[in-house]
């Protein structure tokens, strides 16, 4: 069997990283063998956190607007893919279906994930990305985190 080129991932949680004053979105594959941490800023984390907790904001947040933009023209998100990692910058693509054509749109992973969670679209990571980030040290650090570290976002 050929190795799978992309792996489906689930958002396991958000962790605050006090050393970098940033948040880490933790993605894991189905059988918990691969893990992908993505560092994001506070507002990006908040956009993901609201969707994870199914919070409906009184006014549409930016990614709610994105969703209503796509909905209003019957454009569907088929999937989002975390495609590459260079110098700690992650790249993602959003795959859209609109009028029987598929479109691939370049995106930051934080936008792609925030949008995928709002549209129930699957999230994938390329094998390349998962291999690149296999930093043992980081794995160890994350493994040692206690469950209570996976807290809710303080806003």
């Amino acid at each position: 069997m050929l190795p799978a080129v992309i792996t489906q991932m689930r958002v396991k949680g958000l962790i605050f990283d006090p050393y970098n004053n940033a948040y880490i979105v933790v993605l894991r594959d189905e059988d918990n063998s691969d893990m992908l941490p993505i560092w994001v800023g506070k507002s990006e984390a908040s956009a993901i956190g609201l969707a994870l907790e199914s919070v409906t904001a009184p006014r549409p947040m930016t990614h709610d607007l994105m969703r209503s933009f796509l909905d209003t023209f019957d454009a569907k998100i088929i999937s989002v893919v975390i495609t590459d990692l260079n110098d700690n910058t992650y790249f993602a693509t959003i795959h859209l279906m609109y009028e029987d054509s598929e479109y691939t749109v370049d995106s930051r992973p934080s936008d792609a994930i925030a949008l995928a969670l709002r549209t129930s679209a699957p999230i994938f990571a390329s094998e390349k990305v998962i291999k690149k980030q296999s930093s043992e040290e980081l794995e160890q650090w994350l493994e040692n985190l206690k469950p209570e570290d996976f807290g809710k976002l303080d806003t």
Partner: protein
Amino acid sequence: MDAAKQPDTSSELVALSVKQVLDDGNTDTRIVVLKSDDAGVTLPIWVGSAEGNAIRLAMDHVVTPRPMSHDLIRSFADHLGVRIERVVITDVKSSTYYASIALASKGLHRTLDARPSDAIALALRAGCPIYATQDVLNRRTAVHLDAWINRLDTNNTETQQA
């Protein structure tokens, strides 16, 4: 006077431009200052810091290494052949402003409900006009507003005197 005979101007649209984005002192908010084209009316709208930064980036024509959220919306529009026609600040209720984004695609016209911060950030990236209804301008929290804005502006740009 017979009010019924007066033309109702409340739904008329007034074109605005974004003059600046100010820091609001100690709080983590920004003030987006909109002015009518004849500079007669100022409309300040308080937004979050991330929202204010999204507007600042567009005002300064900063190209970020990766697309920001509003660049992504713009990119969706480009891919789908959707034109962003205009944004309108439509209403204000309990100090919360409401906006709409008018879109067109192949003769199809759609309007999306949005926060003014998203609408403005998108308008600046799409190069489309920004309007407010006359009604919103009439109802803005307007007492000595211009003087207040000017003072704030001075404080932002000069060292405060002890």
